[in-house]
């Protein structure tokens, strides 16, 4: 795979089409689990696993699965991997299993996974799909972990379980605070994103222009 394409997919997954902050997918675990930053990391890891493997299989089978039974096939594959990851977590990381609770099973209906399967993996080659799954998962993990850190520090006064100070605004640990924090994150991220994008385009245009002028000047001097 070309480096250019790899960079494009990587940037799409983490920044340009960040599932939490740009596409606003998978809001259920985002709102529910960000009360504790440790849970976010665990959930993120599980989602990365499921995304990578389901994208892999779906991309491998993309020419085999007929259109009519597309959705049941995708769901069965995704559900299988979620069950696999759930079994692994229950066997080897029981404390994480308890803290994730029912949200582990809810990964099956997490929009991100079915969304990427439907819109990317089902008509892209295998390596591209795997990278897309990986980076989408990383983007998801990073954004919910950041949200989790903010909500945990403000709402409970702890960070990854360790108490920092006595001060807390309980509002942030409640559902209403979840919505507010999420909204603020989306707003701030998109403002920064738009500003950076504009600047980059402007710079690219200027650079191109300068390069052309420079090329002609050097050519003119030689002439």
């Amino acid at each position, binding site marked *: 795979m070309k480096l250019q394409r790899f960079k494009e997919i990587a940037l799409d997954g983490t920044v340009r089409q960040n599932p939490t902050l740009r596409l606003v997918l998978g809001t259920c675990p985002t709102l529910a689990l960000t009360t504790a930053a440790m849970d976010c990391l665990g959930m993120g890891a599980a989602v990365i696993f499921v995304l990578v493997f389901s994208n892999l299989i779906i991309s491998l089978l993309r020419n085999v699965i007929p259109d*009519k*039974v597309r959705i*049941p096939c995708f769901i*069965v594959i995704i559900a299988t991997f979620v069950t696999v990851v759930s079994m692994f977590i229950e*066997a*080897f*990381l*029981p*404390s*994480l299993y308890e803290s994730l609770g029912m949200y582990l099973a809810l990964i099956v209906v997490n929009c991100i996974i079915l969304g990427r399967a439907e819109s990317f993996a089902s008509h892209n080659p295998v390596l591209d799909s795997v990278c897309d799954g990986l980076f989408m998962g990383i983007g998801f993990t990073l954004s919910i972990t950041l949200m989790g850190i903010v909500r945990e520090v403000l709402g409970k006064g702890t960070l990854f379980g360790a108490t920092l100070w006595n001060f807390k605004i309980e509002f942030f640990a409640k559902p209403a605070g979840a919505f507010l924090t999420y909204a603020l994150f989306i707003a701030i991220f998109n403002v920064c994103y738009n500003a950076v994008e504009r600047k980059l*385009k*402007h710079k690219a*245009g*200027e650079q191109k*222009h300068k390069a*052309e*002028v420079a*090329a*002609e*000047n050097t*050519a*003119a001097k030689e*002439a």
Partner: protein
Amino acid sequence: MTNLILAVGREFQWTTVLVALAIAFGFSLVLGILILLINKFTQVKEDPRIKEVEKCLAGANCGACGYPGCAGFAKALVEGKANLDSCGQTPTDKRIEISNILGIEVSGNAEPTIAVVGCSGGVKCQDKYEYQGYGDCVSQNLLAGGRKACEVGCMGAGSCVDACPYHAIECREGYAHVDPELCRSCGLCIQTCPKSLIKRVPVSAKVYVACSTQCRGKDVMSKCQAGCIACGKCERNCPVGAIHLVNNVPIIDYSKCIHCYKCLEGCPRHCIKYVYPEDVPNSSETAEQAK
């Protein structure tokens, strides 16, 4: 935190596995057949030509034709409501295919086009006032027709830049430039520009007129250093009469143009420009004319 407990696993129990497989087999079989039966009963009878036409279209889903995406356009074409010319992006061979499927004639310009901006004033054009406000060209235009001294001067505030789905336009030196490599002639910028400065030229065009003012002479010179003064030199220089002044605006008839560049070289104001940057010859005089 993590306590790796390794005492997991048990002896393989075939009965559990086989029961699970049997259930999976039965369940999926029944549900699969159910899906197909219901699908047969609820199938929407769609004209098969719609899918074929849609496959021939460019597939950009830009919406410039006025229909919801290429699927909507295909449906409208099959129903006879739309004109194939509304889509500037579909290449000629595909157009012929569509016309064959639908049994209609391919009308008008078969040649694909790109957009060019009919202004090169920018920083060279004086400002009536300094605009400090919200938004872009469309909003600026509401305030006494924008800040440029010339009524049809490009404000360079980027409405067309935002409208372009292919990021083919950028503002440099105070006015908009279309990158001919990226432009797909969808026409969204043409609809957006409040001064209606952007126009289409054929892909084969080599020169275009980068000024749209209907004023002449001193009027223009006092406002803009790059504006056309309607001197008529281009018209006189053209060996084939492809360029004429209409209302003080030079208009090029591309069916006649032989790409001799005489109009461009002779223009004292340098307001006729190369369409493609690679055509710009490498000499310091004409470096001015580089995009």
